[in-house]
Structure formats: C-alpha cells, structure tokens
C-alpha cells in the first residue's frame, strides 16, 4: 500500500514537471512572437555603399568644388531634409 502511494506521488511529480516545462516553453515561444513584431534591421547604409562617405553628400561636395557661392543658404536648405520613415 505504502509502495503504491509512493509510486503515485512520483508519477504526479513527473506529470507536474512535464506540465511546467510545456507551460514554460509556451511562454517563451509567445515572448518570441511578441518580440519578433518589433524586430528591425539597423544597417548603416553609408558603410555598405561607400565606406564612411555619404553617396548623395559627395555629389553636393563635388558641386561645391565647382561653385560654392551661397554655400550657407544651400547647407541650410539641405539640413531641412526630412527623415521620413
């Protein structure tokens, strides 16, 4: 009788442990799903395309080398660039 009780107790321990494990796995998978919604690629395109130089800015610099009159006005206008995302 005592042996049977012990067996039942042991079985319950394993069943509970299994349930806890499954619940934990479900929680972690759900957390992965939630976190994956907000994942985004952060890539520095400047580094990929032309080393440390901004491709479009280099064109402006080239134009300055031809004529740099009104440079301040031009720079102010360019700095108003909207970073729409």
């Amino acid at each position, binding site marked *: 009788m005592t042996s049977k009780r012990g067996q039942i107790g042991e079985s319950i321990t394993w069943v509970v442990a*299994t349930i806890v494990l499954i619940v934990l796995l479900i929680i972690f998978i759900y957390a992965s799903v939630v976190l994956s919604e907000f994942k985004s*690629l952060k890539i520095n395109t400047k580094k990929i395309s032309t080393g440390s130089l901004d*491709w479009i800015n280099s064109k402006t*610099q080239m134009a300055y080398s*031809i004529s740099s009159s009104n440079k301040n*006005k031009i720079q102010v206008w*360019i700095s108003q660039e909207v970073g729409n*995302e």
Partner: protein
Amino acid sequence: MDNKKGTDKLLSIYWFVMLTLIAGGVFAMVYVFYGPPYDVREIESEILAERIADCISKQGVINSDFFVDGKFNAAISESFTERCNFNFDVEKGYGDTGEIQYFYEVEFYTLKDTVNPAFSFYDGNNNWKADCFIKKENNKEYAKLAKCKEKRLYALSKEGDQYLIKILSVIGKSEKNVKQ
C-alpha cells in the same frame, strides 16, 4: 528486477520526449524571431534615392538631358525611369490589385525660390506618397505604411546655374516586408 528494467525503459522514453519537446521549442523560438519577413524597405528606399541622384547629377553637374535651350526639358519626366534603367513592374501580384509598389518624385529648386519647385516630375504609384506625411508610431498598423526617404542635394547645370534638388523615394511592399 523486471519491474525496474521496465521503469528505466519508460523513463528513457520520457527523457527523449522531453528532449524533443525542448529542442522543438528552441527551434520554434529561433524561427519565429529570426525568420522572415524582414523589413528592408527603409534601406531599399535609400538605395532608390541614391540611384535617382546618380542619374541626375554626375560629379556635381546635372545631366544635360534635363535641359533644352537653357530651360528644363519637360520630356524628361516621361523618360527618366527608362533612362535610369528602373523597372517598377517587378512586384506585380502584391497589394490588393497588384499595383506598383514604388514611387519617386524629383523637385528642382532655384536659390531664388526654395519653396516652389522650378521643375518637378514623378513616376510610380502616386497613392504611396500620402503615407510619407503620416506621423508614424511604433505600432503594428503603422508598420504597414509605405517607407519614404527624402534626400536633398545641390548641383549645377552645365551653364553654371545653381539648383537644389529634392528626391522623395517611397517603397510600398508591406505584404512582403511586414508580418501580416
């Protein structure tokens, strides 16, 4: 003795089941987090803007095709996409009606008037442009809006006239890049 052997066997099977469960769970987590889709539209719009800038200005001088008799060549607006070797028909089948998923707009300003463009043209799906002016929040619904990139540069005509150029490039393709 036989009973102990049976228990050991059962326990081994149990451990294998647990191991498979955990391995499956880890696989599911990694797949869900690192699996597709990846939203690369921001980078794509930046690349598109760079290519457009490359077609307009080389070494700081605006392509001579943009001018006829000292004035802007209106015909360039029709042929610019082709001249630049852009093909916007590659994403057919996306969107509700298989519509074009790209849009770009180029505006030329003189230094005298930096508000009203002296010349402008666009191509692609004009419907995406409105998405650029919506203030986006870190929300799933906003993620489905088109991604825009504005680039500004300065260039000169061959005659030495100074122009300010604004490029707006827009990429739709939310179905391909955003988890639905």
